[in-house]
């Protein structure tokens, strides 16, 4: 589409970039895509918790039915409302998206359900579909990620290679928001949540 200015037709643009041969047409096979291997091996929920806490996150593992209490207990240690998308199955003071983003940004804690996690790097995978949305895991200064213990895989690649139909946003979160833009010195919690808590269930 055009918005009233600029732009080159696709065909013209692509014609400058060589033949339209598909991947592997010249060599007969696509390039190799080896999985990353690590010098230390961390796997399963324990491995994930080790990586996650090394990044500066906190973590706990509880039976699934105790989730509402665990969320409430964490929220009680923070001063301000708890934000969650509707239908998460935990109590919340602000329901996303009905509360609006101005109110959501005033929440002290957000809680969101993750679809998987990777043990080696301490990574949590968030999908924006299935009523999870994007804001509850992003706007508040502290966030809880709820992870079913059975969904923990070893690596980013293990998860990515299993994704077939990604939603409009899929985020791999590896630790608290940080920056080293001033004097290469680490600061935690710049725009995203600086306090991140993983609750593994089951």
């Amino acid at each position: 589409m055009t918005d009233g200015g600029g732009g080159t037709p696709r065909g013209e643009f692509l014609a400058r970039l060589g033949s339209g041969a598909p991947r592997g047409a010249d060599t007969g096979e696509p390039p190799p895509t080896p999985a990353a291997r690590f010098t230390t091996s961390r796997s399963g929920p324990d491995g994930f918790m080790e990586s996650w806490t090394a990044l500066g996150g906190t973590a706990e593992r509880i039976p699934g039915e105790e989730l509402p209490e665990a969320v409430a207990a964490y929220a009680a240690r923070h001063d301000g409302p708890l934000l969650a998308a509707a239908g998460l199955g935990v109590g919340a003071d602000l329901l996303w998206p009905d509360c609006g983003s101005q109110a959501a940004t005033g929440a002290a804690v957000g809680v969101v359900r993750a679809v998987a996690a990777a043990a080696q790097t301490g990574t949590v995978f968030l999908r924006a579909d299935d009523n999870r949305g994007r804001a509850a895991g992003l706007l508040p200064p502290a966030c809880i990620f709820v992870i079913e213990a059975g969904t923990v895989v070893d690596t980013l690649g293990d998860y990515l290679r299993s994704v077939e139909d990604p939603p409009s946003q899929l985020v791999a979160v590896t630790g608290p928001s940080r920056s080293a833009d001033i004097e290469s010195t680490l600061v935690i919690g710049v725009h995203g949540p600086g306090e991140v808590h993983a609750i593994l269930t089951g």
Partner: protein
Amino acid sequence: MSTPTAVPVPFARRADRALADDRMRAAVARGTGIMVQRRHEAIAELANADELRDAASAIRAATLRCLPELLARWSDNLSALGGHVHWATDAEDATAIVAGIVRRRGGKVIAKGKSMISEEIHLNEVLQRAGAEVVETDLGEFIQQLAGEPPSHIVAPAMHKDRFEVADLLSADRGAPVSPEIDDEAAYARRRLRQAFLDAGVGITGVNFAVASTGSICLVENEGNGRMCSSLPPTHIALMGLERIVADFAELDVMLNLLARSATGQALTVYTNIITGPRRSNEIDGPEELHVVVLDGGRSAALGTRFSPALHCIRCGACLNVCPVYRQVGGHAYESVYSGPIGAVLTPLLRPDDPAARELPEASSLCGACTEICPVRIPLHDLLLHLRHRDARADASRLRRAGFWLWSQAWSRRWTFRIMVLAARAGLPLLRRMRHLPDVGWLGAWRRGRELP
């Protein structure tokens, strides 16, 4: 920084000016030293780093051989999901596309994440002239915007500043003092920029990789500002170079395992955002419109030539951090969006008619440290040599000496020496890793004959 003038200042003069700026040089020496150290530690955590680097190099080469097919497949997939793909031949094309979207979608405030392409096309100036308020939201870019300077490093835009200079800039912005404590500075930026995310009608970001098989774009970042820019405003515009594409998630995985390790020494950046179209009808939030602008900007002319490996670059910045010239003169002396070894290669390819750009391949000592560290194995110093041969001109010999001249100048300066010794004492085993420095002058003798304290 030096501002562009009608009569271009030769690189050697700009470098000389930079060498006189002890404060900047101390900041750059510190920043690059830390980044190199972290990079080595992070790469060492991979049991198959060499295998991954070989694969990444092969993937990038294979990508360039079939760009039309990959880009067509990617854009078909993204369009089917309601995303809009725009093709821009040059900067003028690209800025006109973005300005058109901004005009139609309204919103006076534009929240912007880090994008080297936006620097390449001077997007902010164009949008500001059209009356928009453009807010850089990456902490380093925000500092640079307040300073009225371009970024000096592709990963750490404000690396050349110390926290006292940052505090002055933030205090001027606030109209009240911000303390020169880094935590306080970051906290101020968080508060200051949060409202911009909420007010913005348009979010603009870069793209690290596009994924052909799904129509996705992938954006990596640490602060969360990229996630904000791509989640909160009703319109998201992403800017990418035409070479920035992989076939599928398996290839993306290879790249992601190398990018953050090479750039900042993290296993992965805090946020790896994979965006596949605008908000869907069954989703509860996200932008209504997603536009991706694909820029040629001189890249297609390098395809199929011996210089095409320059387009393999994944913008990790590692070659800047190890480059003895960059480490001495910082990024601004290059007067290009892309500095350091990759900048010295890429700039003359992207700006073939600019004499100042053609001079940049001289800004190298050809020590090879860049080639050694590049995660996708771009033969940077070979490319620099080829560019020198290509552009050999009558006065070239004078410039050719500039790299070595810089060396001797830099190393004979008292401050350089003191900083290096201080860094070494602080436990940064920089010098131990500098085995690729050329054995020239007294430095070579000094290095050969010296055990670190």
